[in-house]
């Protein structure tokens, strides 16, 4: 007789191993990244209204709470960037005859571009 047993999947399935945990953190990073760009909008709108607003905003940014928040956001945004660039070779397959460009080259090119873009933005501001 057949009575197949279905093993239930717990709500905490993502905590089962390292790979799943990092995956879940990677997904959650999108929340922090979104919160940050909204904060960036807020900064641009509020701090450019008046010199008093600007000074108050910068003062608030110095508080330990905000510094900690930004360090956490930085951590998540770095997790996003690193996991994203590392996955690019899986999506961008460039073939030359029988060979394909090595994974490290594809990912490396993205990392290089990332550094260049960051430097450019720093210089502009």
């Amino acid at each position, binding site marked *: 007789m057949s009575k*197949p*047993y279905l*093993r239930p*999947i717990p709500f905490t399935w993502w905590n089962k191993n390292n*790979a799943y945990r990092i995956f879940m953190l990677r997904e959650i990073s999108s929340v922090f990244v979104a919160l940050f760009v909204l904060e960036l909008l807020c900064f641009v709108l509020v701090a450019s209204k008046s010199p008093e607003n600007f000074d108050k905003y910068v003062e608030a940014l110095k508080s330990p709470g905000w510094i900690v928040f930004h360090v956490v956001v930085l951590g998540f945004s770095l997790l996003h960037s690193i996991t994203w660039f590392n996955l690019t070779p899986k*999506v961008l397959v460039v073939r030359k005859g*029988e060979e394909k460009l090595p994974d490290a080259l594809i990912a490396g090119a993205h990392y290089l571009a990332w550094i260049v873009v960051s430097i450019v933005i720093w210089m502009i501001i």
Partner: protein
Amino acid sequence: MSRSQSGLLVSVNTEADPINKTDVVSEEKLTLEVFRYHPEKDSEPYFQTYEVPFREDWVVLDALNWLKDNEDGTLTYRWSCCMGVCGSCGMMVNGTPKLTCAAFLRDYHPEPIRVEPLENFPVERDLVVDMDSFMEKLQSIKPWILRKDSEEKPLSEGEYKQSPAELATYKQFSMCINCMLCYAACPVAGLEPEFVGPAAIALGMRYNLDSRDQGYEERQEIIASHEAIWQCTFVGECTTVCPKNVDPAGAIQQAKVASTIDWYKSWLMPWGQK
């Protein structure tokens, strides 16, 4: 030291067994915790603990075979080639999907090894899972060369030729041995039973990328559906556990890009449709 029957060096007690008149050989042991389930009498599965001999060159499958031969003939599991090409012996070894013919005891010794049936599939008995859903999913993407009848060339014109470069575009995806480790590793395969899954989609890509195939549009009905590529969240564990380096995660992401380009083309350039 002397050699045991299998030729391995084992430590020997210098006190002989006077009754049987042999040297008493002591061997290292390893603990196996094996998932058991008997549908005819169990309402729940349970774990049974065994001691198996530890041999340097043994894999988990050897230990299971030894158990079945010496301790418990009722132990039920699938296996065949013992060399990683048939895809039969996939099981969870300490929570990781592995081919038991490729999981060496020495990599776990002296810790105990927990052996369970592949995750995300219903359990038939002991270590055997119900793989019907997997077989259906494989078939659903039409894993054969599809040709448009009107474009068939007669036999007299010879075979359809394929260059090494054309072969290279799909070769990796053709290496799948249908072992289902990827489905066991994929959280979506467990959470969404209708998810077509890594092996099936990789197989679909194998045919889509084959220069002799003309079935892309037909397969897209399944592959580009919500139950196929769009349920994948690129966890990537399928590729990590694959014993043949098929890289199903890569296949799925490439399918997403191709399907997205198709989608935009169909909206922005509808005159190009067949």
